[in-house]
């Protein structure tokens, strides 16, 4: 069986940054396995700009951002398997994959980094009644058809859901000559970034209908119309508010789901909130030696944060593999729970070993609703150590707090760190 210090599953932005970092942290052999024929993942079809403001201090397109990481990976003596599908990751880190050239391959990894990304929630999961004609696409599928295949799915478009890809595609379809009638969003707030609402909807005069949903699809063979209705506080359509929008295309941007089928097979514990693995400060999952980062861990808004996070996971995976290679047993530390409370939906990571953490640890989180003029507070048990005022917090924008190792170590008998929103 082939051996690698670190095997990275997925060659998108998370996988590439993780592989680089693993190599940088001393892993002698690193392999990236990617199911597509090229590296870069979903960035390849994101031809709009806005990537890299944090990482490179300039505005890049998706393919440009991916190319910078790809160039580094190619120069870093990292092995690649493209057009290769990982079928299984076992709890003792044997990775099984298949491709046309080698057939079925088994690889023993010192450490594994899960970087499979996410998928879009499809129409079927929403139970929108009506027919099942052609012309219903997730926003990402439409994006691929337009940007990679050069095909335009339709002329008259309604978009359900205001996730970032939906907003981007509202603009994209408009630029390609289609008419986007509206973006309907079930929630009373958008799921996307403020900057995308401004640049993709407002600038093009596309209405964003908050607290609205699609209640019916018309058209047996191709979409002919969709019905859009207001929803009440109970999330159900309000009778009498239905409006018929004649159209040929319905795009869906109603949520991204981390793709954790492999994680589940490996026995990795998943969070019911993030739908990604539960991880510690090293972004290590509940299965020793298996790490996770990027959208498979939790869905991000900005690729720059994915790269940062993946750098941590890759580095820790490299260090883990190094210990394994040296015949040492990685230390099982004392893990302190990291809790999300009072408006904070989740945190990543979900636990911390202060002895293992870096001097500064970025804890990322999302809030569960729209909050104005709240304080983001961090508690070490009962003691409040951070209290930072934010004028607005929305579910569509990921937030973060930074924990300092010194502070945690200074707190005797620490049992729990809590991140919460407070009114004063």
């Amino acid at each position, binding site marked *: 069986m082939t051996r690698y210090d670190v095997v990275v599953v997925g060659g998108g932005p998370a996988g590439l940054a993780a592989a680089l970092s693993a190599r940088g942290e001393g892993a002698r052999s690193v392999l990236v396995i990617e*199911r597509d024929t090229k590296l870069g993942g979903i960035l390849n079809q994101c031809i709009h700009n806005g990537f890299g403001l944090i990482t490179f201090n300039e505005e890049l397109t998706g393919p440009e951002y991916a190319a910078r990481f790809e160039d580094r990976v190619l120069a870093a003596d990292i092995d690649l398997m493209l*057009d290769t*599908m990982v*079928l299984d990751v076992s709890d003792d880190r044997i990775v*099984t994959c*298949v*491709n*046309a*050239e*080698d*057939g*079925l391959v088994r690889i023993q990894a010192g450490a594994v980094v899960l970087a499979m990304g996410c*998928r*879009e929630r*499809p*129409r*079927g*999961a929403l*139970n929108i*009644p*009506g*027919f*099942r*004609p*052609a*012309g219903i*696409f*997730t926003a*990402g*599928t439409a994006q*691929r*058809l337009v940007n*990679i*295949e*050069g*095909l*335009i*799915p*339709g*002329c008259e478009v309604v978009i359900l859901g205001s996730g970032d890809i939906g907003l981007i595609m509202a603009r994209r379809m408009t630029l*390609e*000559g*289609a008419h986007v009638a509206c973006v309907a969003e079930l929630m009373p707030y958008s799921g996307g970034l403020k900057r995308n609402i401004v640049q993709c909807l407002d600038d093009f005069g596309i209405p964003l209908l908050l607290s609205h949903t699609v*209640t019916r*699809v018309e058209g*047996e*063979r*191709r979409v002919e119309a969709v019905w859009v209705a207001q929803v009440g506080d109970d999330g159900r359509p309000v009778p009498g508010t239905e409006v018929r929008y004649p159209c*040929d295309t319905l795009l869906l941007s109603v949520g991204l789901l981390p793709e954790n089928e492999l994680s*589940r097979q490996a026995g990795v514990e998943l969070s019911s909130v993030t739908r990604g693995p539960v991880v510690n400060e090293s972004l290590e999952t509940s299965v020793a030696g298996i790490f996770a980062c990027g959208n498979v861990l939790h869905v991000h808004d900005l690729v720059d944060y994915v790269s940062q996070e993946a750098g941590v996971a890759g580095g820790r995976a490299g260090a883990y593999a190094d210990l394994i290679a040296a015949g040492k047993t990685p230390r099982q530390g004392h893990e302190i729970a990291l809790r999300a409370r009072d408006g904070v939906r989740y945190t990543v990571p979900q636990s911390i070993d202060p002895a293992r953490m870096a001097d500064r640890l970025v804890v990322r989180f999302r809030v569960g609703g729209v909050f104005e003029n709240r304080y983001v507070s961090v508690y070490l048990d009962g003691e409040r150590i951070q209290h930072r005022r934010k004028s607005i917090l929305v579910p569509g924008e990921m937030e973060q707090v930074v924990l300092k190792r010194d502070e945690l170590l200074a707190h005797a008998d620490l049992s729990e760190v809590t991140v919460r929103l407070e009114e004063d």
Partner: protein
Amino acid sequence: MQDPDYDVVIVGAGVSGCATARELSRLEAHVLVIEREEDVCCGTSKANSAIVHAGYDARTGSLMARLNVEGSRLMPSLCESLGVDFMRIGSLVVCTSEDMLPGLEELRQRGVDNGVEGLEVVDRPRLLELEPSVAHAALGALWAPTAGIVNPFQLNVALAEDANVNGVSFRFNSRVSGLSRDDGGCWHVSCSTGDVTCRAVVNAAGVHADELHNLVSADRLAITPRRGQYYVLDTTAGNHVRHTIFSQPTALGKGVLVTPTTAGNLLVGPNAEDIADKEGTDTTAEGLAEVAEKSSVAVRDVPLREVITSFSGLRAHQPGHDFVIGEVPDAPGFVDCAAIESPGLSACPAIGRMVAGIVRDILSLAPKPAITPWRSSFVSLERATAEEWAALVETDPAYGRVICRCRRVSEAQIVNAIHAPLGARSLDAVKRRTEACMGRCQAGFCTPKIMEILAREIEGVDMSDITKAGPGSGIVIRTDRDGSAGDGR
């Protein structure tokens, strides 16, 4: 007088029509199947419970009862020979109220009278052993070990492929608009893709069978589309039950079933609603809500949050509630294969034999000296072992290129589906043959890739010509900014 173009024209390429075609292909006859859609298996045959009933349900002495039991007996070997997925998992009719318990025994007795083997009324402890996920209120059940599940798409496709390999012609995207018999006894079929003449007509037109029948007979037939709505749950929920679970019918109506599918999903449904529109395969908020509510009667904790899609199917119901099979007395040579509602899928091997037998007797058809054995090339990589998969890649490297990640469908399977007899031409046709697009992402990732493969493999077809399910269902309807149209409009 000129010889007719065909001996037999079969109208409708669902399971009944194709099972009949396959049986007729064993006889010395020129047979044509006319189908209004672009592929086989586009009506009731694709949208049903995908189960093989044991046969205790239908009224003793009815055609339904006889053909169900016979079909259920024939099904395992037929599927085995055609390479179609079939699993004899057994079914349970679950009773949840004390006063309904005697009903189980009645049901068992009816099954025995119908000729069903192995039926047993089981008490609560035995029921829990068989099926730990039954509702807390479950008191007992009728256990039918001969019931099974089948892949209806594969079955329909394989029956058609076998018939085609053995000489039966197929015409798709073709509508029959008129039917008449001349003085010489020759049938004239008016068809949108060219009229044909024949000596006998088989009416396997599903919910439209009454329209066809009433063109030729004064004895009217009336088919009501009885709509049933279903949820399909992800394979993560596929093991929620081990058997097909029915709730016992009560005075308040028939319950919904919960069953695994051969593809490893969980299927929940159907409700029953008589509608006016024979094309009304849309789902409704009310119908889906009803299915969701009834799903918990016999099974507990059905994980409805794992739903990946929902669909509607139309049962071809007639008031007498029995299959209508036979030569129409006032239309010699016109053979009905009509009102094939549940348990039509279970019965189809027997229906095919019966209808072909009637046609054989009318036309005095002799058996063919030799037939070409046929086995479809369906493969499930999801269920293959690592060694089996590796061996397939040895035979064709394209088995190593996974196109549909959710269901693990390789490029080789898609290419095979396109080049098989009556090969796939649309996304849905590929889906029925390979299970690509049927997974949790519901075709999000693989749609563009399958479009590419279809365009590459089919002569003269461009990516922008690819449809979801035939004319009028183009995936893209514009190819560039000046608005030049693809096939969709």
